């Protein structure tokens, strides 16, 4: 037990209220500054116009198509990157020679800012969704790869020996020991991986495409439509928050076996 009592935080509804107050405050300041022309509405848009544009985009249904495209690219990049990361992570962790030989190259490729690959992918794969998926994959792959590698390497030797003594074959070891251990590492990096998948999709769209949220923002920028840019950013933000919440739910479901740091209700000695 901690000696000093931590200062108590207010209850959840109060915190939620404060959080909403921050949001409203931000829009209010924005509104006042642009309404009084301290900030030019041309360069900064106005919150009401942005909200109105966002609302009309959703109401007319235009945005759903672009949202769908970005979501599809994100999902594909995430799935392909994760599967490839798991496969290679396992392979490298189980084959020391391979991992030593490829080590400098993996590090080099990972150090490369992946954005510079976007034009190459556009050249190879065209302006459709696959060039964006490819960009997302290069981002997701390394996160998952390193985590799986670590997860397999860090399997407790005692747990491994125990499973072997209980009669586990190599296939069993993979399924019951290595995979859960590696997956726990993958899931702990899930937020980052999903985030990167989306960065890949949006940046790819931004640099050259005919659909998606990144495309919408780029289009608006091209005609100095600041309201359009901010509206696009708003939609993107909502999109990210929703996806993040979904990931959190999935994470909670899949990692329920892990000890939680702040366990107060059913903490065991």
């Amino acid at each position, binding site marked *: 037990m901690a000696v000093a009592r931590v200062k108590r935080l207010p209850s959840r509804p109060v915190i939620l209220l404060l959080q909403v107050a921050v949001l409203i405050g931000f829009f209010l300041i924005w509104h006042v500054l642009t309404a009084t022309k301290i900030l030019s509405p041309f360069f900064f848009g106005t919150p009401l116009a942005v909200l109105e544009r966002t609302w009309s985009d959703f109401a007319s249904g235009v945005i759903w198509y672009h949202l769908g495209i970005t979501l599809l690219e994100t999902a594909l990049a995430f799935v392909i990157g994760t599967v490839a990361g798991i496969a290679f992570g396992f392979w490298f962790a189980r084959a020391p020679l391979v991992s030593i030989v490829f080590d400098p190259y993996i590090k080099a490729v990972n150090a490369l800012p992946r954005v510079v690959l976007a034009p190459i992918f556009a050249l190879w794969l065209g302006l459709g969704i696959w060039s964006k998926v490819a960009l997302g994959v290069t981002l997701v792959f390394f996160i998952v790869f390193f985590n799986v590698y670590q997860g397999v390497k860090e399997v407790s030797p005692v747990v491994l020996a125990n499973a072997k003594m209980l009669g*586990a074959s190599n296939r*069993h070891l993979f399924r019951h020991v290595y995979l859960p251990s590696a997956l726990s590492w993958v899931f702990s990096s899930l937020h980052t991986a999903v985030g990167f998948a989306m960065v890949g999709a949006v940046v790819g769209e931004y640099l050259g495409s005919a659909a998606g949220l990144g495309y919408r923002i780029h289009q608006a920028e091209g005609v100095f439509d600041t309201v359009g840019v901010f509206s696009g950013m708003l939609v993107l933000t909502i999109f990210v928050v929703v996806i993040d919440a979904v990931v959190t739910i999935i994470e909670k479901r899949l990692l329920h076996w*892990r000890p939680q740091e702040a366990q107060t209700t059913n903490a065991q000695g």
Partner: protein
Amino acid sequence: MSDSAAVAAALRTEGADKAALRLDGVTCTFPSPDGRGQTYTAVQGVTLSVAAGEFVSIVGPTGSGKSTILNVAAGLLAPSAGRALTFGEPVDGINPHAGYMFQADALMPWKSALENVAAGLEFRGVPRREAEERARPWLARVGLDRFGDRYPHQLSGGMRKRVALAQTLIVDPKIVLMDEPFSALDIQTRQLMENELLDLWSADRKSVVFITHDLEEAISMSDRVLVLSAGPGARLIGEYRVDLERPRDVAEIRMTPRFLDLHREIWGQLREEVLKGYAQTKLK
């Protein structure tokens, strides 16, 4: 149950090659962790045999390679010299007759208590459903029937040991290897667990090799106590037959005169080794 020792002795004389477990001049040498090209010999020329149904304890000072002997018996470690036999067959790879209860936590943290107990059956090809149904009575036997869906981190240290015990015994190994299984527990929990283990053991006599540094634990549970010298190059230096009656209560038997005699006798020998071991760790 005073005839159990006689039965064990008879089994041993009947045919030493059919012993549940037999180590023949086992020596284990490891590359030293601190020196380049240096080697470290953990155990040297260990020869021992454990009859079917016999409960044998190995005591020795810390760092005397007790776990190394178990790892060889389990087939997790190939000896540098000598050989291990189980029921007359050389141990090559994992010893199929052996169950192993580790000193450290060895439960799979991503499986619930029930799934952990069922794991051994599942590895042996029993369908998951059936394996879990068969695991339930085992959980009940170690007093955890209400805790099947808890994960290891939600259980106390003693509960985890019970799960590990059920996990090891459910696959019905002929030999149970135990590496200081209760050393992390407080004394009360420990005596409870020791009695439970003796109960489970007397229900269907398996061979048990029990490693401990606690001489009282060793004497109160075993048919035979083997003493290991201080490492490096630990050897077996003593063998004592424990002719105490069974069934035993580990707390009560410690008060009997025969127990105290045995304790004095074995401790006389073990004490020197412990001091030697202590002196060596101080030198390092």
